């Protein structure tokens, strides 16, 4: 889940006044979320960094449209997810699986089973772009289905359908992996 990172109204008003250090603070607060979303969508650190950079640049150009700290957070997630989906549609052969590289960092401070976490990340990476974005916005960014629908310009029914089908696929994937493990002697 994302840590509290919503910029305060005071910080936002400094950003809107054109204070560069204030914008740098916003980037620092939001970069984990934007970068992680990009990384798990694109499956490549360099591409994720490039996308995050583009998204923050676009934010800077569109600061006048930002209404509040909450709006800014939502805007960043929306733009990141949509740009990543567009990129995957343009370059369908992008390799999306070498996420093990990010595992070490992602596992910090978690009590859950590390093998299960790695499997889940690999399974999420195999979902098609739109359902993957839905799952990431729900479970990484903790957005509710109504906000996900707004962010991805989908109906709430499509969001719920993607969530149900993706969870079923993930559950099946975990069960299949567990059975494989039982069959093959270690």
């Amino acid at each position, binding site marked *: *889940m*994302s*840590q509290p990172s919503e910029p305060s109204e005071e910080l936002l008003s400094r950003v809107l006044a054109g204070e*560069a250090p204030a*914008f*740098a603070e916003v*980037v*620092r607060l939001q*970069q*984990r*979320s934007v*970068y*992680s979303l990009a*990384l*798990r969508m694109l499956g490549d650190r360099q591409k*994720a*960094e490039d996308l*995050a*950079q583009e998204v*923050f*640049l676009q934010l*800077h*150009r569109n600061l006048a449209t930002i209404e509040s700290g909450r709006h800014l957070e939502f805007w960043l997630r929306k733009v990141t997810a949509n740009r990543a989906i567009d990129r995957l549609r343009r370059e369908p052969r992008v390799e999306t699986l070498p996420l093990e590289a*990010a595992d070490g*960092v*992602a596992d*910090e*401070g*978690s*009590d*859950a*089973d590390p093998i*299960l*976490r*790695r499997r*889940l*990340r690999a399974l*999420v990476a195999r979902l098609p772009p739109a359902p993957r974005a839905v*799952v*990431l916005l729900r*479970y*990484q960014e*903790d957005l509710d289905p109504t906000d996900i629908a707004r962010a991805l310009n*989908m*109906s709430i*029914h*499509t969001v*719920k*359908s993607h969530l*149900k*089908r993706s*969870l*079923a696929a*993930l*559950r099946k994937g*975990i069960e299949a992996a567990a059975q494989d493990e039982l069959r093959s002697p270690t």
Partner: protein
Amino acid sequence: MSNDLDASLRAALRPVDPGEGLTQKVLAAIEQDTAGQPGPPPARQSGWRWASVALTVALLLGLGTAHQWQVRRQERGLEARRQLIEALQVTSAKLDVAYRVVNDEEKTENGS
């Protein structure tokens, strides 16, 4: 199982750190972007400026009137198109639920 999976997913999908340097790269890109933007246009003689403003306004008004009905029709059409797509999405999502349940039941029956 559902709650377990929810919790495991949240744990698996914790945001990761981009590492050092992303903020600096972003700030550098913004600096470059700002520097590359053209400055304000040079001031023109006020008479010409007023003439061009009046011409633009007249043109816009003329075009606006001529195309008003087209715009209204387009708005209605686009709204109808949006509603149609939403209706198809809702229908498909519900057919999908029915399909999944029937399919799961068949698999369970065949499996037992």
